[in-house]
């Protein structure tokens, strides 16, 4: 894992951060229709948004890449008024999953890539859910457990999708700044 960033790295990270935000907006209607049926306030859209951060972290393999992309997302969300009910706390809400993704990526460096990516995404998604619940929803009991479980399942599914993306992107010769 390298500590320095090239301009290409930073450009890629900006693209993945943007893709994450755009992806969240795109999947929101479908995700909301599912969570409305389950009578919980969310947990799916964020997991798919974090998928792009996980792909970026895996492809770039740079120290703090996840946190940096998450910070970029937070700044964009703040500037565009996509703060939901969190207000200024949105910066922390975005940063926490990014830090978790980095930590899991670093801790499970030697683990099988597929499981590592799935765990990164699931842990990030769960961290985002825990933070949102502590700050806004305050769900307890079965509703709280279901909210976390949904975030975990969506995180694992998005993580598997991220793994497929990473595997295919690594095969593309000269793709961005991929390191094999």
């Amino acid at each position: 894992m390298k500590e320095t960033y090239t301009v290409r790295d930073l450009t890629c990270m900006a693209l993945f951060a943007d893709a994450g935000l755009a992806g969240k907006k795109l999947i929101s209607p479908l995700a909301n229709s599912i969570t409305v049926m389950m009578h919980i306030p969310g947990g799916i859209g964020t997991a798919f948004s974090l998928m792009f951060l996980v792909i970026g972290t895996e492809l770039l393999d740079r120290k703090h890449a996840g946190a940096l992309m998450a910070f970029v997302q937070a700044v964009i969300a703040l500037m565009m008024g996509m703060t939901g009910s969190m207000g200024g706390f949105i910066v922390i809400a975005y940063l926490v999953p990014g830090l978790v993704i980095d930590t899991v990526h670093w801790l499970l460096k030697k683990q099988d890539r597929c499981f590592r990516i799935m765990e990164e995404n699931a842990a990030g998604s769960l961290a985002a859910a825990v933070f949102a619940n502590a700050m806004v929803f305050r769900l307890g009991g079965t509703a709280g457990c279901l909210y976390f479980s949904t975030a975990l399942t969506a995180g694992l599914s998005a993580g598997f999708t991220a793994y497929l993306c990473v595997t295919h992107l690594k095969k593309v010769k000269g793709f961005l700044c991929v390191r094999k």
Partner: protein
Amino acid sequence: MRKKIVLVLFLAAALTACLTLLHLNSRKPAAENGITVCYNSKESIVDIRKLNLTEVSGTAVNGKGEEKTISGKGILLKDVLTYAGAETYEQAVVTADDEFSATVTAEEINGDTVYLISEEEEVQMVVFGDSDSKRRVKKVIRIEVK
């Protein structure tokens, strides 16, 4: 490897499915024709559309921190609680269909700033002049008076 991945995803999905069933069976369903008001372990259903709704307007802070004017046909939460027979209370917990909830104190309720606004098929609670955007509850289904 593939089997392990499928197993992990299946277990996570099964856990979520079980919790969904548990949650849907254990939650108090929304009354079809109004809001359930729980007071002194008694439940009554209040259809605010049948009460005397007036045109209300005021400002509340949204998630972006901007002041937003909200207007519509509504009624004071105090009047709804009185209609439901709740006389003395310290606070009310207003819960939405997705289990999101917000608490308003008796002081705020009696300060005539907490309204229930009727919008098409749903009811939302607004605390006018409140700086906390998290206390705007949409699709209100239940009010627990404590």
